[in-house]
């Protein structure tokens, strides 16, 4: 039986810090189906509606997004080998009022030179020349057997108004992972190349962690009821398995997210939202859900005790404990029903793993992991 799993869950805090550092909003790693593409678009559209005033920027980010996602779906079947990390990658972040979109997919090593040359050519061209080049490629149509790869990249460069950044990470003798970093903005961005490199490196590091831990989705807070509802909507389309299994995952996700919203600790009380991270991993139908957030150091002792208690009880005793809390209206406040953790333990059928990492004088980073066994 696990309990305090600090070493194992340390990566949650590392991931959270890395996402915060570069203001990464949302990372998805996996197969890209039409449904998932639609969800990512909806999620980003919503994010843009909330954050962005300029409708020009909104439109630009959106159209690049569509292009990037199509690029992944178009190429995700290029690699036939069943490699563990033959998954696409999508990342969106906002920095200094600029959006950064990073996508990734596997490519064959013998295509790398061609892609590199194409990007270098695109990057060397000025706006007008790029337009002409687009026409030449469009008419010639001989660049790619997929009938679009070249055009897609040219289009991204044209729409973003900025140079494309890329990186290839070698996977084995046949294949590599291709990262493409785009910045949709109205004016060209000059001189901040270093930051872009650093930001791409950070994403590559995060991606390595996701591969290692088999994580599908990471959503960086801040969390509030509203962002929770959007996230739930996007998850519904991404889950696999039977309806009853999906429903169970949904129950657990809601409780875990509301735990962050209700108990998460924030230094900045001016905002009605709490910093945190939400992670979902899936392996052969087995879902792992992890949340991470700061908690008040004065509350950790009671929380730890409750978790230990819940993990030590038999199913029968858990049921009794649940019923006792259900009808205990003394502790009835909008902050807590006191049932969440017991419910997580009952519904998942597994002990809960957790960790506490002291981060400052008055706060502790708390990670909680629930594993949902297929029924």
């Amino acid at each position, binding site marked *: 039986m696990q309990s305090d799993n600090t070493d194992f869950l340390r990566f949650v805090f590392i991931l959270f810090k890395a996402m915060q550092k570069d203001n990464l909003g949302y990372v998805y790693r996996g197969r890209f189906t039409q449904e998932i593409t639609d969800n990512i678009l909806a999620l980003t559209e919503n994010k843009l509606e909330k954050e962005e005033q300029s409708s020009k920027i909104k439109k630009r980010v959106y159209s690049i997004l569509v292009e990037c996602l199509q690029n992944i779906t178009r190429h995700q079947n290029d690699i036939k080998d069943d490699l563990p990390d033959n998954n696409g990658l999508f990342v969106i972040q906002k920095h200094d009022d600029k959006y950064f979109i990073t996508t990734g997919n596997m490519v064959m090593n013998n295509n790398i030179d061609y892609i590199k040359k194409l990007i270098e050519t695109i990057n060397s061209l000025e706006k007008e020349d790029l337009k002409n080049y687009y026409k030449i490629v469009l008419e010639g149509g001989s660049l790619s057997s997929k009938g679009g790869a070249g055009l897609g990249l040219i289009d991204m460069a044209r729409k973003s108004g900025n140079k494309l950044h890329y990186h290839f990470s070698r996977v084995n003798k046949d294949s590599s992972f291709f990262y493409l970093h785009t910045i949709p903005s109205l004016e060209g961005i000059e001189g901040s190349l270093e930051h872009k490199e650093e930001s791409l490196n950070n994403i590559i590091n995060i991606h390595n962690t996701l591969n290692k831990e088999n994580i599908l989705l990471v959503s960086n807070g801040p969390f509030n009821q509203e962002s929770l509802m959007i996230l739930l909507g996007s998850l519904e389309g991404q889950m696999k398995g039977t309806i*009853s299994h999906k*429903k169970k995952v*949904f129950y657990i996700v809601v409780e875990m997210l*509301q735990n962050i919203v209700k108990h998460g600790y924030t230094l900045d009380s001016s905002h009605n939202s709490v910093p945190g991270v939400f992670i979902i991993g899936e392996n052969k139908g087995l879902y792992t859900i992890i949340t991470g957030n700061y908690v008040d150091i004065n509350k950790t002792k009671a929380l730890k005790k409750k978790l230990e208690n819940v993990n030590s009880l038999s199913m029968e005793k858990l049921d009794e404990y649940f019923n006792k809390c259900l009808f205990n209206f003394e502790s009835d406040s909008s902050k807590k029903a006191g*049932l969440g953790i017991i*419910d997580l333990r009952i519904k998942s059928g597994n002990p809960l793993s957790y960790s506490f990492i002291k981060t400052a004088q008055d706060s502790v980073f708390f990670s909680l992991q629930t594993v949902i066994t297929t029924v």
Partner: protein
Amino acid sequence: MTETLIIEAKEDTPKIVFDPANRLFQISASSLPENAIGFYEPVIKWLNDYSVNPIDLTVFDFSFEYFNTASAKQIAKILLILENIAKEHEVVINWHYKKEDSDMLSSGSRFSKLIDLNFNFVGY
């Protein structure tokens, strides 16, 4: 007779229809508000008022798509009021659940064991 109470469903709060004249008592859709106490306060107040002079047979339909644990506690409160009404009047609970949603059935059967009321379980 107590006036009707109708609250339309939102993304995270359920639909409420309490209409004694038409013998309708229904809670449906999803309940996962951040502040469950706040949402259920007028609902519980209405039921307390109603319990003073209820109709002879109260058939109460719960058809939740989903509810969170904070809402579970408020549902427990509602059931306790109904249990009280049932001491002198007839009360029937219809607990609707999707056949695939075994957790929703478990929640209903948990309530039925803890509260002295007639429960019908209706799978759909």
